[in-house]
């Protein structure tokens, strides 16, 4: 039995008992109230708007979890030297990173499940109030969207581990992870923009276009996990899309964590 599981367990417990998780839940409650308020102002497609608000809220709150609780978990180990208690066991640096990451994945999945309940409750309330205005609605699509968001957060968290493996302070890891998030979600649109820049009336050098195209393979493409619009309008998503998107996510995550564990092997703790 490898020591991966105990490391994952204590990482998860430390994360879930962190006060920030309570804060995030409070936020979720506020979002529910906002959902009811805004749905009032919409004339026709109340369904789409309430789904937009619910799904966007939990995406955002999940992001806060990864950025603040997640990075903090790893950073605390490095800054506050709590890593000694773990590395003193018969565990290698690589196993440490993987174990911690598994704990983080568990934390993300559990928190997103809780947030999912908030989202479902808020949509349900709005649906009860405006049942005639939910022309195209599908619970399975909503759950699929939340699952995809969870996967994209796991990917982002893996990147935060990669950054933490070489960054000297947790602040740097935070900035890099935020940058990765922004790049990840704007990548497809930026690529579309530079490849057809005439539509906006700006000039883009061919070098920039090539650069962006190469960057597309290095940086994570998080926007493929954003199916909120499809969920809001109950638009069909082919099984092949789901299959390839999930594969991409898993493969990219494994690559990133492997690189992180390789870098981490070099790290010392004076």
């Amino acid at each position, binding site marked *: *039995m490898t*020591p991966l599981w105990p*490391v994952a367990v204590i990482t998860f*417990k*430390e994360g879930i008992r962190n006060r920030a998780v309570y804060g995030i839940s409070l936020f979720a409650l506020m979002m529910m109230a906002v959902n009811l308020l805004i749905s009032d102002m919409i004339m026709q497609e109340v369904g789409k708007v309430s789904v937009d608000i619910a799904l966007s809220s939990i995406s955002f709150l999940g992001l806060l979890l990864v950025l603040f609780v997640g990075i903090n978990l790893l950073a605390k180990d490095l800054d506050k*030297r709590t890593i*000694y208690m773990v590395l003193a*066991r018969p565990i290698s640096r690589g196993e440490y990173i993987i174990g911690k990451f598994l704990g983080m994945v568990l934390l993300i999945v559990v928190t997103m499940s809780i947030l999912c309940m908030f989202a479902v409750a808020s949509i349900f309330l709005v649906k009860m109030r405006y049942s005639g205005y939910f022309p195209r609605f599908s619970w399975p699509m909503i759950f699929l969207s939340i699952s995809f968001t969870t996967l994209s957060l796991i990917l982002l968290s893996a990147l935060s581990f990669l950054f933490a493996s070489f960054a000297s302070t947790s602040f740097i890891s935070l900035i890099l992870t935020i940058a990765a998030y922004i790049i990840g979600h704007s990548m497809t649109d930026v690529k579309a923009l530079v490849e057809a820049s005439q539509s906006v009336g700006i000039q883009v050098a061919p070098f920039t276009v090539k650069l962006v195209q190469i960057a597309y393979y290095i940086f994570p493409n998080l926007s493929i996990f954003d199916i909120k619009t499809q969920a809001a309008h109950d638009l069909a998503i082919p099984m092949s899309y789901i299959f390839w998107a999930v594969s991409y996510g898993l493969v990219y995550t494994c690559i990133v964590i492997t690189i992180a564990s390789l870098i981490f092997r070099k790290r010392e703790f004076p």
Partner: protein
Amino acid sequence: MIRIEGISKEFKEGIGSKRVKAVEDLTLEVHKGEVFGFLGPNGAGKSTTIKILINLIYPDNGTCSINGKDVRDRETRRHVGYLPENPFFYDYLTAEELLWFGGKASGMSSAAIKERTDQLLTKVNLQAARKRHLRTYSKGMVQRAGLALALVHDPEVAIFDEPMSGLDPIGRKMVGDLIMELKGQGKTVFFSSHILSDIERFCDRVGIIVGGKLRVVDRVDSLLSGGTTLEDIFLEEVEKAGGGATV
């Protein structure tokens, strides 16, 4: 037993400029079943040496082995218990969960962990606080929890970095008793300290390190036989090393 051969470690301060030789060409052997004290002023290189033994720091030169296994192999630590100087633990774990983690990560069964946890927590007097979050613990309690964690898997070799720091006289007695108990069980104990009386009381042999270099290694009773105190010897070594500048 512990074998250290020709260890050196240099640290770079900041970006490029200053270099500090933390440990220089250190060779040392700790025999099985003995209690060895590592004595030196602050900043002498005690912690660095210990961290190299636990593979937290990689030496520039030299090798170390514990019970015949190179310290870079993670299996070495299955039978080593480590207590760092000023231990830090996760805020929201309880002492119970901490020991569960230590035991499981070292390959113990749940039943063995449960028994050992009860035993150790009683010994270090933390039974009452076992279900409280570690962030509520006082410094002394944290130190004692660290001791329990270091010993939960019944290691052959115990390596303690300043184990008495932060403890009141009762706590210090407890640690002393523990060390003697380990010796009685035939375990090897290696601990660092700058408190002379502790070294005198518990150690079979002592190594004095000043400025990163090992100066003296001898049996405690031999050193004290001539009537000199450990303090005299210690201060003499510090003087020889160049004035006793401490960190």
